[in-house]
């Protein structure tokens, strides 16, 4: 298991400046190919109109680029909702529409080719799995009332689609999170079901009524907007703490990069020790700010005496405890705190004082910490540190 949370993990990807003309040509060419695929699919089973399929393909294409940013997990594309709604169209056409949209999206993306191919394959596989579940439930529910059968089949298909997509993507295990954190998926699922029901709704002869789409967009976009604001504020919050962590270093009171390295090591140790997610969050905040108290103590250049680490920690804890959201972090930092997270912080800080970021000193430093007076550091945490150091997970960086 690797350290999953980095203080700068939530940094939003900056959009790269694209070469407009070249991308334009690519989009045009691929768009025509996509239209040809959609037309061919319609020709095979001429049920929904070409316009409907083109509309769906466009919606998927746009939805793949708009993502709901969820804390601590990879973002969820809005296209998931469109895919769920589209499960209701015949399988061949679904395959054509999804393939066209995913291929166009992969060609217009500017990430490495390998990532694009994996992503497209993953989305296609998830859709296929969703469609199988949809078809299976529809087969079972043949005798049920119409609405109920459609609801059950779409629901099963949607859940399988989302689950397979997240499983294939890997990353932090989403299944351990409580259902409260499933709100974004629930919004996507519900919107997808709505679209599925709206299929052949208002103004439709044989496809999705154009009138259903704006209706479908309202809840989806409002959810997207709300999640986006939430993600932004959380990132800002983290970055503010990370930025404040640099103040003691810029003031020459701590080694450059110390707080950042301690926070990373704390993340790795917390993952190794299987600490709960909310503790990890506070642990990282406490690690980033554990030198903050130094700023409020007499300047060593004037008083001639550097404050003891315990004094710095006590002052930092006093400051953090005054704030509502950071109080648990302050409790961790207090010199008399003795739960596992506090031990982790102390071990990580002492380790970095010894190695100053030089990974080659790691094993020596672990031994040094072990051979200190037995009651100083928790042996369990030291064991975890030993394992993390041996695996060489810490970034190699000069002192």
């Amino acid at each position, binding site marked *: 298991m690797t350290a999953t949370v980095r203080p700068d993990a939530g*940094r*939003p990807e900056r959009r790269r400046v694209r070469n407009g003309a070249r991308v334009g040509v690519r989009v045009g060419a691929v768009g025509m190919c996509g239209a040809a695929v959609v037309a061919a699919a319609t020709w095979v089973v001429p049920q929904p109109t070409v316009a409907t399929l083109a509309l769906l393909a466009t919606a998927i294409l746009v939805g793949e680029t708009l993502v709901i940013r969820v804390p601590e997990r990879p973002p969820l594309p809005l296209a998931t909702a469109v895919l769920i709604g589209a499960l209701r169209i015949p399988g061949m056409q679904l395959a054509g529409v999804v393939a066209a949209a995913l291929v166009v999206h992969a060609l217009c993306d500017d990430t490495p080719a390998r990532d694009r191919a994996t992503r497209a394959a993953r989305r296609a596989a998830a859709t296929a799995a969703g469609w199988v579940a949809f078809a299976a439930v529809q087969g079972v529910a043949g005798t049920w009332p119409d*609405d109920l059968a459609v*609801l059950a089949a779409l629901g099963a298909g949607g859940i399988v689609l989302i689950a397979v997509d997240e499983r294939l993507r890997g990353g932090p295990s989403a299944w351990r999170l409580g259902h409260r954190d499933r*709100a*974004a998926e*629930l*919004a*996507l699922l*519900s*919107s997808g*079901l*709505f679209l599925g*029901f*709206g299929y*052949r*709704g*208002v*103004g439709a002869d044989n496809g999705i*009524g154009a*009138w*259903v789409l*704006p*209706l479908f967009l*309202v*809840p*989806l976009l*409002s*959810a997207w907007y*709300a*999640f986006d*604001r*939430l993600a*932004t*504020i*959380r*990132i*800002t*919050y983290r*970055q*503010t703490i*990370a*930025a*404040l962590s*640099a*103040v003691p270093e*810029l003031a020459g009171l701590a080694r450059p990069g110390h707080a950042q390295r301690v926070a990373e090591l704390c993340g790795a140790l917390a993952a190794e020790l299987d600490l709960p997610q909310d503790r990890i969050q506070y642990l990282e905040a406490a690690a980033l700010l554990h030198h*903050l108290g130094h*700023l*409020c103590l*007499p*300047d060593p*250049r*004037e008083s001639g005496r550097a404050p003891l680490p315990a004094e710095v920690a006590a002052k930092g804890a006093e*400051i953090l405890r*005054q*704030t*509502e*959201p*950071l109080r648990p972090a302050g409790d961790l930092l207090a010199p008399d705190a003795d739960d596992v997270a506090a031990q982790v912080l102390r071990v990580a800080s002492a380790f970095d004082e010894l190695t100053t970021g030089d990974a080659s000193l790691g094993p020596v430093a672990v031994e040094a910490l072990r051979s200190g007076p037995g009651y100083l550091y928790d042996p369990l945490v030291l064991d975890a540190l030993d394992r993390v150091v041996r695996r060489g997970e810490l970034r190699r960086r000069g002192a």
Partner: protein
Amino acid sequence: MARPALLTAYCLTLAIAAAATAVVVAWRGPAPQPVPLLILGALFAMAGNLDRVTSSRGFSVSASPMLGMAAVVVFHDTAPLLGPLLVGLFDVLDVTHLRRFEWRKLAFNAGNFGLSLLAAAATFEVLAPAGPLGPTEMAALALPTVVVFSVINLSLVIVVTWLADGGIDHRELRRDLLGEAHVFPFALLGFCLGRLYLDAGPVVAPLFIAPILIARQTFNAYVAIQDSHEAALRILIGALEAKDRYTAGHAERVARYAGYIGEELGLGVRRLERLRLAALMHDVGKLVVPNHLLNKPGKLTPDEFAEVRRHEDVSVEILRRIDFLAPVAPSATSEASRFEPVADERGQPIEPHIVAVADAYDAMTSTRSYRRALPQQEAFRELRRNAGRQFHPRVVDALIAALRRRGEVHGPGYEEHVYHQDAPVTGTGSAGLGDLLPDGPAPAAPAAGTAGA
């Protein structure tokens, strides 16, 4: 002047009128089907119970008109008048008002919605052609229907505001009327929702509402986190500033004044948020400056000044690390915030100027180790005198207007803490650092002179 008796009579009349109409219509015509009535009524009551979400321009958006329009379409074939009227009456299930037993509000709201929806439904019935409605007909019908709904609804609200407050606030009225413009797209969506309900069954209503509820909950979580974030940052900065008592509370006050100016200049919600954070952190670099320099009474030597000056670079560096604040990072430097008259102001961020003015105003109206606080009027005069040279004129006007409107006074006698009782009375030097310049511009007020050296 409020008229309580008239207000009570008015609210009761509305409720009774709505109820009586319902009885008459029910007696003469068919009853609405229970399932759509209950589903739409429950959703309508729910929309009333949720707080309104206020958009970034200050217009508040409510789901009620949309659901009302959906009811007009849903009951078109069965109980065209009674259905919407009854759905409107469901607004009586307002938990907050019920719990406090504010029966006048309950009566008014239910009566208002019942009658407005009745009028809208009547308009729809008069105008609707016979036979099934296509998308084009619906789009054409949505406008008159929702206009009738809005006009009735707003008129009833204006009367009740007049009776309750004894007058009409014209600014507020204008904002309400402008805000009403958003109703049309929502009404159109309501029509679509109603049609879809008829075509695809009752399931669509909860499926439509669920993501909206999730979005609301998420939005509330965002607001809560944002508030606690700002509060935590204020406390952190405040605690760190405490090492340097001469500016205790400075960052928080600058953030507050910057917020006033931003509101006065009509910045959007996001820009205001960014401005307040940037103002809060504009001096964070000062934390790296040794105490003895910050608290030194009198002027600094050029070397010392250079060291103090370094703090601006540190502040900028720290603001740059926060993506949200990076665009306004120059707010922390005195160069970027200096006002240079340019022909074209577009594209020039105004935030650095706002922080500069708020910073200077707070510096002038608080006592520092080298100078007593100046009276507010003198600080205003100094800001005005330098407007167009050092300070952005619009920003200066906005600060003065905002403080006057709020009736806030700062300066000697209004400070929370004065740590330097023995500070000299000295010139008006306007920005914090300007005072410390070894060869700084000569203080302007002739009476005060340069006693600080």
